[in-house]
């Protein structure tokens, strides 16, 4: 985990190395300055020597200036290294998320990913800066002070060793107890985040059912959970300070007692005891700093783990070694395909699906709610990998293509589709960044989106809000279809993409497909039989199996279920949708 984090230091390695050096420089000045102070007092003031006061005073100011230089440089490089690391961490996370397959994406909530990329990275950044600026300094101080103490009187100084050992054990105990709590606490942060996200996105439902109080209570639970976990964790850390104080005070008292005895028996001078006391203070300060870093690291370890989890998440789908980059044509083959969202769960949503679609053919897919229509088409552009069997596009297994090649030729209009903030044109060019405006307009004409875009005040430059909230559901769907068409795909998949479009427009869009892009294989999932009736073939899915496939007329003749659906939609005196 730590290695994952450190491997992202990269171009900030120099700054990371230099920072502690400057800080050590500052520390040296810090150690020399008290000597100057003592000199000013002992040799200057006490001796009544004005010139000595001036001399040491000047030296001290010079050292202060040097210390300042070191401190400032440490500040500059420390900031550069830590913010640079944070930047690289975010970059690495985002880069890896971009490699995530759909099943990786399903694993994490958006809210959780956002927390990891902001709050958690900030925690790591702060800890790293602390480590660079203090971590090296404190042990150096500690070791130097211990060394000096031992050189004065080894027997007496062994007290320090006892204290340091006790402290180390105590700190380790505290750490092992609290780190788990912090880890849990940060997971609760995800819950809190999700609670808020849920409420904000579903506010209409909440208000419509007058469930403000209910949601409020569940938020309160999330807030209470965080509270109780963090209180527990921080209470653990609260032991830090008193344990340390007790160690230091213990040192001072035993030094006083043992020192006194040794002075009396002439084994130690008074001056040496005084110096030992001053080293106690140095040791105390450095231990204090260490424990501060220790707290920071404890808190940030949980964050570091969450960050590295994302960086190390293995994308469940990878391009093959030697990928095929050209999709020959739009033919699609399913060969004995079975599929489950969780591999090995045995919970197959598709079982033993086989069919062949010619290039340019149009296939309609109907079936009751939950019959895995969407799962079936998701396999064509390899959004998920099959559990058994194989899916071929243009005669080649989809797993042999580079994903980019495959997906740019197989366009899916997802059921739950989103537009992004930006102009209409920018959104359209998602389908093909190099598309000319004319190509975009043509796509809009086929998708029947041109009529309302032209009516908008700024036309193709109209700004779309996040999630496309400023266009209606039907308009959003038509824009999404147009966006998919801009890429001039070989295979086009519409997953219930015209459900909010009125029937006449729906009809027009389908006519557009057959007239203007006849070479494109189209898969149309729909609820309305009218949407698929004119397809070359219609596939009827039931509980993850193809129960029949054929033209409308064939199915009417031989398939009872199809006939029933047809009749249910046309029953009575004839239904608009179907006639």
């Amino acid at each position: 985990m730590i290695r994952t984090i450190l491997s992202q230091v990269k171009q900030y390695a120099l700054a990371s190395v230099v920072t502690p050096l400057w800080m050590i420089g500052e520390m040296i000045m810090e150690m020399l300055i008290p000597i100057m102070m003592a000199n000013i007092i002992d040799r200057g003031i006490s001796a009544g020597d004005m010139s000595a006061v001036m001399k040491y005073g000047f030296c001290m100011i010079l050292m202060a200036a040097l210390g300042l230089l070191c401190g400032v440089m440490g500040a500059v490089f420390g900031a550069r290294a830590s913010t640079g690391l944070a930047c690289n961490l975010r970059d690495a996370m985002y880069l890896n998320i971009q490699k995530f397959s759909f099943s990786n994406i399903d694993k994490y909530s958006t809210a959780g990913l956002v927390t990891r990329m902001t709050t958690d990275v900030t925690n790591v950044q702060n800890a790293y800066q602390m480590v660079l600026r203090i971590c090296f300094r404190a042990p150096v101080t500690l070791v130097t002070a211990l060394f000096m103490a031992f050189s004065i009187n080894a027997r007496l100084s062994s007290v320090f060793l006892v204290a340091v050992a006790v402290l180390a054990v105590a700190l380790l105990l505290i750490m092992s107890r609290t780190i788990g709590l912090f880890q849990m606490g940060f997971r609760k942060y995800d819950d809190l985040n999700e609670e808020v996200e849920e409420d904000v996105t579903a506010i209409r439902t909440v208000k419509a059912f007058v469930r403000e109080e209910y949601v409020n209570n569940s938020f309160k639970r999330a807030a209470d959970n965080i509270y109780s976990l963090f209180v527990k964790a921080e209470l653990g850390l609260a032991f830090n300070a008193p344990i340390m104080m007790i160690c230091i005070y213990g040192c001072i008292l035993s030094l006083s007692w043992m020192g006194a005895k040794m002075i009396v028996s002439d084994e130690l001078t008074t001056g040496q005891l005084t110096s030992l006391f001053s080293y106690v203070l140095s040791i105390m300060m450095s231990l204090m700093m260490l424990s501060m870093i220790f707290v920071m690291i404890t808190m940030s370890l949980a964050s570091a783990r969450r960050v590295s989890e994302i960086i190390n998440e293995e994308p469940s789908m990878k391009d093959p070694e030697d990928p095929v980059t050209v999709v020959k044509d739009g033919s699609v083959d399913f060969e004995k395909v079975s599929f489950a969202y969780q591999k090995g769960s045995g919970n197959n949503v598709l079982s033993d699906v086989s069919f062949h679609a010619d290039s340019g053919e149009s296939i309609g897919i109907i079936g009751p709610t939950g019959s895995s229509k969407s799962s079936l088409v998701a396999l064509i552009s390899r959004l998920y990998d099959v559990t058994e069997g194989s899916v071929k596009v243009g005669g080649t297994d989809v797993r042999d293509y580079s994903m980019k090649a495959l997906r740019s030729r197989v366009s899916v209009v997802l059921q739950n589709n989103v537009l992004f903030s930006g102009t209409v044109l920018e959104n359209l060019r998602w389908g093909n960044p190099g598309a000319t405006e004319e190509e975009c307009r043509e796509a809009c004409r086929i998708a029947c989106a041109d009529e309302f875009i032209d009516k908008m005040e700024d036309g193709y430059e109209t700004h779309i809000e996040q999630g496309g909230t400023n266009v209606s559901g039907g308009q959003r769907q038509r824009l999404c279809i147009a966006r998919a068409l801009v890429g001039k795909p070989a295979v086009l998949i519409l997953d219930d993409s015209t459900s909010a479009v009125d029937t006449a427009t729906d009809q027009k869009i389908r006519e557009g497909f057959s007239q203007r892009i006849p070479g494109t294989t189209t898969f149309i999932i729909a609820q309305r039989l009218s949407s698929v009736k004119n397809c070359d073939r219609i596939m009827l899915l039931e509980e993850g199996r193809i129960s029949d496939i054929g033209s409308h007329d064939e199915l009417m003749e031989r398939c009872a279920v199809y006939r029933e659906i047809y009749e249910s939609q046309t029953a009575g005196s004839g239904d608009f949708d179907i006639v």
Partner: protein
Amino acid sequence: MSEKVREVKMGGPRGRMLGPRPKLKDPGAIVKRLLKLVLQHYSLNLVLVFICTIVAALANVRGTLFLRTLIDDYITPLAETAANGGTPDFAPLLSAIGFIAVIYVIGAAASFLNQVLMVFVGQGTMRNIRKMMFSHMQTLPISYFDTHSHGDIMSMYTNDVDTLRQTIGMAMPQLLNSLVSVTATFVSMLMLDVPLTVLSCVMVFLTMVLSTRLAKVSSRYYVAQQSDLGSLNGYIEEHLSGQKVVKVFCREEACISEFRERNDRLRDSANRGNRYANMLGPITMQMGNVSFAVVAVAGAALSINGFTGLTIGTLVSFMTLNKSFNMPISQISTQFNSIIMSLAGADRIFRLMDEKPETDEGYVTLVNSREGEDGECRECPEHTGHWAWKHPHQSDGTVSYVPLAGKVTLDDVDFGYTDDRMVLHNIKMYAKPGQKIAFVGSTGAGKTTITNLINRFYDIQDGKIRYDDININKIKKADLRRSLGIVLQDTHLFRGTVMDNIRFGKLDATDEECIAAARLANADGFIRRLPQGYDTLLSHDGGNLSQGQRQLLAIARAAVADPPVLILDEATSSIDTHTERLVQEGMDRIMSGRTTFVIAHRLSTVKNSDCIMVLENGRIIERGTHDELIAGKGRYYQLYTGNAIAS
């Protein structure tokens, strides 16, 4: 420094309607408000913290003094006794050490207690603020949520509240601690020598001037950092929630480069902010050293030349005090930034809390009712399946009960989301109790908007909406909404089991009621096929449930609520027509005698309605039954025939 801080821009929400970024104005008021919040629940804790801090500081001072007396009063006499051949008596030393040990233990205990108390104060205040924010957010009008980015709202609950911990948990106690020791030192210094104290103060003042200037520079960058963080946060939130679309269009590289641009900007502002903040420590520390040297030279000049009564001994003591005078000052100055950052956070939090809640001047409430023997409608506590509007009349103090019938009238209603652009014009509508009213029309014609007005998600600009002849403005919003069941096209499921999600419609529904509702909505079948049936946990976006399955759940949720009036807004658009028919039959059964509003573009959904309204560009252009509209040969007929010809 307050003047300059006022100019500091802060990273406010990037809300679409907020315009220029707000500035952090009047930090004093924010601090006051924050303190008030802390004191509200933790005044006792803070008093104890105050006492503990003083005790700990005093114990510390006493401990330091002991080191000075140890040698002079105990060790030196002992050594002399030993040197003179006497037997040194260690007992007084032992008791002195024992005494000071007690002092130390008290000091350690006080600082431990301090820490413990502050944990509760810090975490407790954070929890309270979160809860306050959330309950307040619940009362805000829909338009607030329309105009604020979700990522930004989320970040208030985590990032902004977290910055408060820094201030409450660390900066405040440290300030207090520093204040105590600075005061103690200052008094001691004054007692020793006034001119040197003045000189020390001048040096401290210079340090303060320098460090506040630096703090201002860094806080400017910190504020920039918060805003860059916000922009990055927004980008991540938007594009990760649409990550599947990104994948489908192979837009990974484009997204990465857009992301990098924001990421680099954040790095640069964070780098600058941290750089200047880091400099504060060394600068104040070295200024302290310079101060020491300057005071030493000046003091030496004074005492050696004998201008004042300053003795060398006093000067030596004074120099020690000078050292401990500078230390806390430099500690305080390093806290400036965190304080400024958390004030910026607090400001954002307070701005949320100051948002005006939905106005609800309604006083008519919905109650369960029973028909009395005299045929009058009476209020009763239990659920009877009958409701009545309890209408207190302010003029004469009487209360009248109007049975809830489900009559909804719209009278010349105009509406626009903003005042300058109307989306609905002159809407007139009359729904008799028990009728099924349908709205059809092309997308964007204003169908959904009408239902949003009936439940008062938005308030109308002109005209009147009446419910059972009561102006809906007079009805308490919660009761109005309780009387309307709504199934929206965009279904939102909540984290929890399937059962929990259905029960959302009626919190005290039994499992049987929920299952019955699911059967009615035809959702029972697929639910039973889920891995854990009704106990299957759903994530907040519904996981692997298909759009149609989610709609069935939403309908079950509305069915269990058993509302007097039902609004179905494209509620069955993703459900296959066969299932839809079954669902509809079920719904028709429970809604018989109750009013239903149906919005659909699928004409089969609306055909059997009592009245169909055809909307176009925010106006009702036709109305009537299916047969009447066909006979009228208008827009509806056109849709019908256009469709027919196309097939």
